[in-house]
């Protein structure tokens, strides 16, 4: 399956299992979503379970909070993560705090799906990676899959989770893995081992990272598109890197991180989002605090630049093979 098919399958599985699951968002109903993630669901489950909404992110998230208070398990879609900001007050002030402020009387068991990340010539408002805005909010869980297998399993786990989850889908990975070599032909998921998706219901647990490639020389902490880029660069350069796909940013799998960095003594944190105040800063701080005496080199932070995501200069912005390769070289040389 492609990642889009895996996400569609996860929604199908959950809607069939749980009548409280409802799917809504801009263009998700009859049309099946601008990326086809909800294709066929309305025809199968009816218009009161899968429906189009007005173009109002604040309304979509706010209504989902109220549905959760009733007892539904809403899965709202925000068409692009770049457009989640009008719904931010409802996410930060309401969904994230509802359980806490009501001492558990009311909860917000919702999963906000939203396509994110660049590498598709999306320009400023179709490329952003705003995960750090959400990892900073107490009460929200943040999930980023990097393969079709994980996308389905993590989405099912997110929908079943009783806490609000922001589910970022790297749209550069929807139809195939992306290794960072944008001038080479794209590879479809069909020729990739991680595209095997079991039928029916299964979970990939939240809070558990995946070691994508075992190695001894350096630890790479990545998620989403950058998982594939980090692995590809290591293999082309012949570096014995241990690439960890975090999968969940909050709660974070700190044990896997500590074990790996303690073993390798070298660590690169990698993300597409802008550098300053990005989630990489949190990762670097945690590694420094918890693995200080094992470190043999400064933690390398490889990220997007501190600029809005540019259109024509996309591949100059993107943390691609050159930036990653030089960071590998500095880590190994240290």
């Amino acid at each position: 399956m492609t990642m889009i098919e895996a996400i569609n399958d996860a929604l199908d599985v959950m809607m069939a299992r749980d009548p409280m699951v409802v799917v809504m968002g801009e263009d998700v109903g009859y049309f099946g979503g601008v990326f086809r993630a909800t294709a066929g669901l309305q025809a199968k489950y009816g218009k009161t379970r899968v429906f189009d909404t007005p173009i109002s992110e604040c309304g979509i998230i706010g209504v989902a909070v109220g549905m959760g208070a009733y007892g539904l398990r809403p899965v709202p879609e925000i068409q692009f993560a770049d457009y989640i900001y009008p719904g931010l007050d409802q996410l930060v002030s309401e969904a994230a705090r509802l359980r806490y402020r009501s001492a558990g009387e009311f909860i917000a068991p919702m999963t906000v799906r939203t396509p994110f990340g660049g590498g598709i010539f999306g320009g400023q408002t179709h490329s952003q990676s705003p995960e750090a805005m959400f990892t900073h909010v107490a009460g929200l869980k943040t999930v980023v899959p990097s393969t079709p297998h994980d996308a389905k399993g993590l989405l099912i786990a997110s929908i079943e989770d009783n806490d609000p989850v922001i589910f970022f889908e790297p749209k550069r990975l929807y139809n195939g893995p992306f290794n960072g070599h944008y001038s080479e032909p794209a590879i479809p998921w069909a020729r990739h081992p991680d595209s095997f998706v079991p039928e029916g219901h299964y979970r990939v647990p939240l809070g558990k990272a995946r070691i994508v490639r075992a190695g001894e020389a350096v630890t790479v902490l990545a998620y989403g598109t950058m998982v594939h880029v980090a692995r590809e660069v290591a293999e082309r350069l012949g570096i014995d890197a241990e690439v960890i796909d975090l999968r969940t940013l909050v709660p974070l799998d700190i044990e896997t991180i500590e074990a790996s960095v303690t073993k390798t003594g070298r660590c690169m944190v990698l993300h597409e989002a802008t550098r300053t105040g990005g989630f990489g800063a949190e990762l670097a701080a945690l590694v420094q605090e918890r693995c200080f005496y094992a470190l043999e080199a400064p933690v390398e932070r490889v990220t997007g630049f501190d600029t809005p995501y540019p259109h024509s200069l996309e591949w100059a912005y993107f943390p691609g093979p050159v930036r990653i390769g030089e960071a590998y070289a500095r880590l190994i040389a240290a």
Partner: protein
Amino acid sequence: MTRVNLPKLSLHVPEPRYRPGDPVDHTHLAIPAAGAQPRPDEVCDAAQTHPLCLDLIRVLGEDDQAHGMWNPGLDAATLIRMLRLMALTRAFDARMVRAQRQGKTSFYMKSTGEEATAVATALALADDDMVFPSYRQQGLFIARGYPLEEMVNQIFSNRADKLKGRQLPIMYSARAQSVFSISGNLATQLPQAVGWAMASAIREDSRIASTFVGEGSSAEGDFHSAMTFAAVYNAPVVFNLVNNQWAISSFSGFAGAERTTFAARAIGYGIAGLRVDGNDPLAVYAAVRWAADRARANAGPTLIEHFTYRGEGHSTSDDPGQYRSAAEGSEWPLGDPIDRLMRHLIALGVWDADRQAAMDAEVDAQVRSAVRAAEANGVLGHGLHHPFRTMFEDVFETLPWHLAEQNEQALHERRVKFPDWSDDADLGNA
């Protein structure tokens, strides 16, 4: 660059009619006679309510009698119950402000003059209709039977506070009474109420949702999205917009009141709208009942503007003498909701001054007793609070590792500050 052949543009910045010390003349307020407003069928086309968005539905007249088609025809026992709940709300407010001045809590907000908007609304809805209040509907909690002692526990943030001292005073949550958790972020409850109502409709339930917002907060974007979603999905929801003329120091003109009524916004969304004398408990009851019946009949949402006056400061942190004329409230032409209902009951021959005095004494005693009971559980800052570990609970359903570590840090700091303290004593406090 200004073009010389065109007039200079000018910015209009609204200004209230009266500032501190100004004499007040309320004759500009169009106040129709009680009973003069038509009452369309509950399932009418929304457009039929448009005249009522610009009018003012009134039932209780100057003669203290109930008039017209909106008279809900309530029996004496219900009217006396309504009066008592409003009086209890006012007595509670008075006692809580005193408690705040005595340092037993940090903060309080009264609802003086607006008791009818909460109490009559609660009585007009079914007890299991879900209500999403703002912070000035304490009468709703009281009318729904949420225990006064629990309210005071929350206000004092003591060891019995059901919200574990996490919330600012008055931000109650009462799921058992079908009242939603109050948020400090204004107007967020509006789309949530719509979502709850949509969920009820999706599940083919018979319960409806209702929500409250002040006229000031109706300027928030959430108001617009809530109205749009309610209209699009014909959601079974009743919006109560309490127009008490003031949003802290900003008069209603800063929310758009100089151009039209707040009820008139319903017209643009294609939903039913009613504008009601918010100090007339019978009119409030009738309007909410009409809207609730409409929602229950799948005829759609209603926006009700409750036209009233905020009799006191915004909160215990506010001094209205700094920005408005005291005479504006004392000469408010729609009077006082408790006084008006009392005079109606007397005019009906079912009430008198002695019974009123006895009831006032009873509600005061009821409040005092609740405060005494709550005080035994502690007051703010006097040590009887929830255990430290509870600060980290309920952020998520289960405690993640980073919160477990921070919990240990908080406990460590406490041991440093109070070397004699033991974890067991803290747990016994819970």
